[in-house]
Structure formats: structure tokens, C-alpha cells
């Protein structure tokens, strides 16, 4: 790449700026010993990782723009969540902040229409054919395979950890949205307060296991004012997500051991606590089964052990025969069972003698 004057493609990787006239001028610049501080002559340089992250993010932005345009044409409203909205808001210090997919929330009554639009664009629903109990509780995952790779759209019908009906949640968030330029188009994005809510809920959903949401929340807490965070809590109230919001914030300040003594933990139900501590699946299943009446437990266990073929293919890959998928499922759960029992016991110890009333 030329030193400020020429910009060949990254793919060609040719560097211009070596003309005779430039060489003469560079010689005349007389840089100070050790380093040239004249940016016309020499750039500071960009890390390979930063460049790759930017290129990767742009490819996802292109898909996002295409999908939002198609939604607009079909009359489907949408709100862009996470990904680029977080990167542009909280990572202005040039720290690369990669994102892996497109997150769009649509009104519940338009979810089916949005799915049709994605299907027409060549996306396939990874959750097609799975049982209702196996579905992700807040979004369906759509994947399109292109020459450049696989691109994913998480089509949200609700926001994780919110308790109000999806239609009500949509109304609350739509009231906190505005249109912003994005990748050559205009998309609807949440305002700062609503984004702060999602930061906290994202941490509560993933707990200590994921570093990225924790870093996002740490930056959001540092950047936004107290009044914005107060407004965020009010939005969380409207979404029925106050407990999860408070717990997400508590994770920034507390270790797992001190968290269980916090007010936020006391107010949380079992599902939320399991999310925060990121229990492995066998531990979660054991705890969930423990909450059921005795007569329902065998059916629950068998249902989890013998998941739908569609669910197994989503988890393990689409090429293997069904019997081998089930055999692998049984082997994996059996292998994780001892650790699952240990984790479940640890969870019960951290939660006290019993579970809080729901």
C-alpha cells in the first residue's frame, strides 16, 4: 500500500509510493533519528489481526445489509442487535472487536414472513424439524453457504431472559430505536439505554464462561453515564428482565463465590442461576429433572437422551447415519455424567438448601 497516496487492493498487496519523485521527497523530509513521524511519509502500521477482523466484519455487514433490505422490501420490521452496534459504540479505541453473525429482532407477528424472506435469500433454518422443547428459546439460526464461507442470521423472536410476552418486548424496544446509516442503507438500531440492557442480559445469559460479553459490559459501564444506566434499568423493568439485568451487572463485580451471596443472586430463579454459572448440559438436565414430579422424570430423561434426528444433525453434523448419531449422543452424555453430578451438587450447595420459589 502506498504511503498515503496510493491504495491498491489488499488482495494484490502491491505497494506503490516508490516513484522517483516520492523517493526524492522522502529524502528531503529528513526524519528525526530512529523514526519518521510524518504520516504522509510513513504510516504507523496495522496489525494483521486488526485487518482480518475488519475484513471479516465487513463481509458480515454486507450480508446484514442485504437481509435488512429484503426485510424492508417485504414490509418486515427489524432491529439490528449486538455485533456492529457494539463494535461501533464501545470499540472506538481501535481494539478489534469481531462478530460472527447477524442478529436481528423482528416483531412476533412477522416472524413467519421474515423466515420466508430468509428462505428466498438462500438461508436454511438450522432448527427446522427439531421439537419445540429443543428449540433455542429466543432465536432461530439461519445459515447460507457462500463461496466466501457460511453466513449466519440469528432471527430473534424474543430477547433472552425477558419475561414479558414477545409482542410487548418488541413494543418496548421499538420505542427505543432509531434509524441509522449502515453499510449503504438505513437500519433500525437501539438507543444507548436499550443497548445497555442487552449488554447486561448478554452477560447474565453467558455468565463467566464468555469473555466477550463481559468486556462489552465493562466498556459500556465505563463509557455510559449513570443516568443512561438508570434509564437502562427502567427499560429492563419494562421487559420483565430486572433480575437478569442486575445479575449481569453483578457479574462484573463479583466472583462466582461472592456472587452467590449477592442480592441479585437471591432474586434469581434456577434457570437464570444455571445460565450465569454456565453449567454443563448434564448438570442442567439433572437439576431440571429434580424440579419435576417423579412421574415426569423418566419421560424428561428419555426425551433429552433421544433428541429428534434434526436436533442431532444440527449438533453433530448432517452426514452421519441416524443410529450413529444417537450412539454418539449416549456416549457423550454418559462421559459427562460424573462431572454433571459434581456440578449439580456444587450448584445446589451454592444455591442453598433448595430452590427459590418461582
Amino acid at each position, binding site marked *: 500500500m502506498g504511503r*498515503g497516496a496510493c*491504495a491498491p487492493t489488499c488482495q494484490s498487496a502491491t505497494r*506503490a509510493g516508490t516513484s522517483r519523485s516520492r523517493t526524492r521527497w522522502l529524502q528531503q523530509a529528513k526524519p528525526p533519528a530512529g523514526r519518521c513521524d510524518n504520516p504522509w511519509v510513513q504510516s504507523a502500521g496495522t496489525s494483521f489481526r486488526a485487518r482480518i477482523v475488519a475484513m471479516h466484519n*465487513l*463481509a458480515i455487514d454486507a450480508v446484514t445489509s442485504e437481509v435488512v433490505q429484503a426485510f424492508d422490501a417485504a414490509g418486515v420490521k427489524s432491529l439490528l442487535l449486538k455485533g456492529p452496534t457494539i463494535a461501533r459504540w464501545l470499540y472506538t479505541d481501535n481494539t478489534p472487536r469481531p462478530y460472527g453473525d447477524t442478529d436481528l429482532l423482528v416483531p412476533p407477528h412477522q416472524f413467519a414472513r421474515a423466515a420466508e424472506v430468509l428462505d428466498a435469500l438462500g438461508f436454511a433454518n438450522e432448527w427446522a424439524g427439531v421439537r419445540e422443547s429443543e428449540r433455542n428459546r429466543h432465536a432461530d439460526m439461519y445459515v447460507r453457504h457462500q463461496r466466501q464461507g457460511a453466513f449466519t442470521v440469528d432471527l430473534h423472536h424474543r430477547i433472552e431472559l425477558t419475561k414479558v410476552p414477545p409482542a410487548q418486548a418488541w413494543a418496548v424496544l421499538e420505542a427505543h430505536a432509531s434509524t441509522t446509516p449502515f453499510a449503504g442503507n438505513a437500519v433500525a438500531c437501539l438507543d444507548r439505554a436499550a443497548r445497555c440492557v442487552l449488554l447486561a442480559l448478554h452477560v447474565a445469559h453467558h455468565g463467566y464462561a464468555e469473555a466477550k460479553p463481559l468486556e462489552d459490559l465493562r466498556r459500556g459501564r465505563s463509557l455510559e453515564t449513570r443516568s443512561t444506566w438508570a434509564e437502562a434499568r427502567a427499560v429492563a423493568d419494562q421487559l420483565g428482565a430486572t433480575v437478569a439485568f442486575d445479575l449481569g451487572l453483578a457479574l462484573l463485580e463479583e466472583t462466582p463465590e461472592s456472587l452467590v451471596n449477592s442480592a441479585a443472586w437471591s432474586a434469581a430463579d434456577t434457570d437464570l442461576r444455571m445460565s450465569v454459572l454456565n453449567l454443563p448440559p448434564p448438570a442442567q438436565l439433572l437439576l431440571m429433572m429434580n424440579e419435576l414430579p417423579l412421574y415426569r422424570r423418566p419421560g424428561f430423561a428419555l426425551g433429552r437422551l433421544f433428541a429428534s434426528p434434526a436436533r442431532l444433525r444440527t449438533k453433530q453434523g448432517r452426514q452421519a447415519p441416524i443410529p450413529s448419531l444417537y450412539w454418539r449422543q449416549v456416549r457423550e452424555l454418559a462421559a459427562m455424567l460424573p462431572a454433571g453430578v459434581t456440578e449439580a451438587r456444587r450448584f445446589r450447595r451454592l444455591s442453598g438448601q433448595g430452590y427459590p420459589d418461582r
Partner: protein
Amino acid sequence: MLTPYSVVTRSSRPFTAQAQDELVMLDPDQGRYYGLDAVGNRIWELLEEPRSVADLCAALSREFAVDAASCRRDVLTFLEQLAASQLLDVEA
């Protein structure tokens, strides 16, 4: 062929992302990536609105340690490359 009197503006087509000192661009129609270093990035910013090449060079000369002649030569070369990559709109 661009001259100092040419009025230019950047194309609205590419998506852009900052990568430390560099501006990385993706032209979705061509499926190609481009990278601009710090000075190229500043030129791209200044071309958000139409302006003549002469005005552009005058602004850059105020901001960077470069003489007028070198600035004009380097900027014209750069703009020609942008135009060849269909990233520049020439109005006059």
C-alpha cells in the same frame, strides 16, 4: 484524466471499517477488499462531500507535512486509482 479542477466525491457503495490506522473497505458489488492507510483514510473522509482536487490538496497541505507539488502529484495518483477501482465519482 483528473485535473486540479475536477470535482470528485467518494462512492457510497463500499462498506468501511477502521482497523487501527487503516481503513478497510469492501465493495459488495465487486466482492473486493481495499485498504487505505492513514493519509488515504483522511482523503476518504474529506471526499464525503464533493470538492475539487485543488481544495482537497489545500486541506491536506494544512494538515500534513507535505509541499504543494508533492501533495498534488500523490493525491492525483491516488484519486486515479480510486476511480479505476470504481470507488470515486467524478462530477466535473
